[in-house]
């Protein structure tokens, strides 16, 4: 099961992820054509400004998700296989209960399609478009256990580089 990980320290607020998300969810799928599409394609994630930098955020794919609990049409259902909150936009009647229920404000109404928008982790792609578009690695996609292991190695390397561990035998592989 793979998830999107956010590293806010790397985010430059370039908004490439938002653009890539909107294009990936457009009818045409290409930037040139998507620009002129009606209704205009919209992103399912946001780069929130914070302390002069940015934090890209999108659906957390909660277990026991409040949005699923309040959905009246079955448009939002747990996707056990992918470990996500599955969303079938055609079933959405835009009652907005999910948008109000989401603790993080990550499901919004789209006046163009008259349905709610929610990150679907780009079902059908190898990796979500936002992750592929991120030039700095602020967004990564992978198995949480693997990602955390990578982070530990990175920290260890930095510690070694700063000679804090020089001479010790605590090096990783």
């Amino acid at each position: 099961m793979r998830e999107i990980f956010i590293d806010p320290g790397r985010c430059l607020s370039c908004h490439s992820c938002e653009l890539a998300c909107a294009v990936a969810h457009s009818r045409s799928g290409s930037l040139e054509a998507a620009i002129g599409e009606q209704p205009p394609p919209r992103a399912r994630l946001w780069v929130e400004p914070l302390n002069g930098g940015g934090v890209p955020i999108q659906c957390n794919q909660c277990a026991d998700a409040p949005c699923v609990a309040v959905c009246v049409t079955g448009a939002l259902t747990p996707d056990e296989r992918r470990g996500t909150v599955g969303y079938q936009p055609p079933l959405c009647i835009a009652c907005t209960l999910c948008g109000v229920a989401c603790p993080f404000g990550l499901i919004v109404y789209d006046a163009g399609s008259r349905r709610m928008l929610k990150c679907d982790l780009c079902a059908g792609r190898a990796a979500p478009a936002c992750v592929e578009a991120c030039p700095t690695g602020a967004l990564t996609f992978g198995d949480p256990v693997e990602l955390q292991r990578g982070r530990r190695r990175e920290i260890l390397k930095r510690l070694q580089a700063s000679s804090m561990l020089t001479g010790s035998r605590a090096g990783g592989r």
Partner: protein
Amino acid sequence: MTVTIDGRPVSAPAGMPVLEVARGHGVELPGLCHHPGLPPAGACRLCLVQVEGRAGRDLVAACQLPAAEGLRIRTSTPALSETRSMMFALLLASTGGAPWVRAAARAAGVDPAMQGPWAAVTAGVEPDPCIQCGRCVRACAAVGRGLLQFMGRGDARRVAMAGRVESPGGAPTPAAGLTDCLGCLACAAVCPSGAAPWSLSGDRWHNQRWRASVPARRCPACDRPYTSHSLPDEVARRLGGDAAGGWPRMGGRFRAGLCPACRRRAAARMTASGAGAHGLLPST
């Protein structure tokens, strides 16, 4: 399970409306009343298909025809074209040739100028873009209010918001003992005609067609109105919590009633501080 559409076998989940099966396989069928998230109603009769091997009464609304093993249907036959044209003629006549119905007719290959003898029959009827497809009625029921209902008979049949009583000098208000409109606005979102829009004016959402208005809720942080007043309380109630005591299921970590934009700001702060749901390690 296999259904045969125009001679082409396609697989379909049992019980799925044939309309959805057909559209899912790229077969264009007209239809204005069906919404995949709502129970089928068969109100507009435009998605008619012909069921093979069924003698008489073989024209069936595809939205109300469940997929069944061995079902064989045709989506384009002379009988279908004729009946569909008549259905469009009726809708055009009853709506006074509403632009959106004309567009739907053109898209289905039917000349929207053709109103046939029906134009005379409905000459005295006031034009109204509503085709009484009942999507709003079904959406209101799905959300758990059921306030929108068909009322009246014959020419006088209309969708209206039930249980409202006139109040002097203002919009009608809910009758005593009845729950009020939740203000979810799904009725407008599912409406194919745009006949029942809500608009925000002052501190209330208004709907002229329903003769209704509901108070808006302002975000306690940014002061912008973002939903109806009662909707967050209802959502909290359904989640088994209490909006006033912090957001249910989140251990009260969120200030109650924040608008989605302010919640995103809070979520970004949480993510950056490493307290987010993603279990972040300090930034590298």
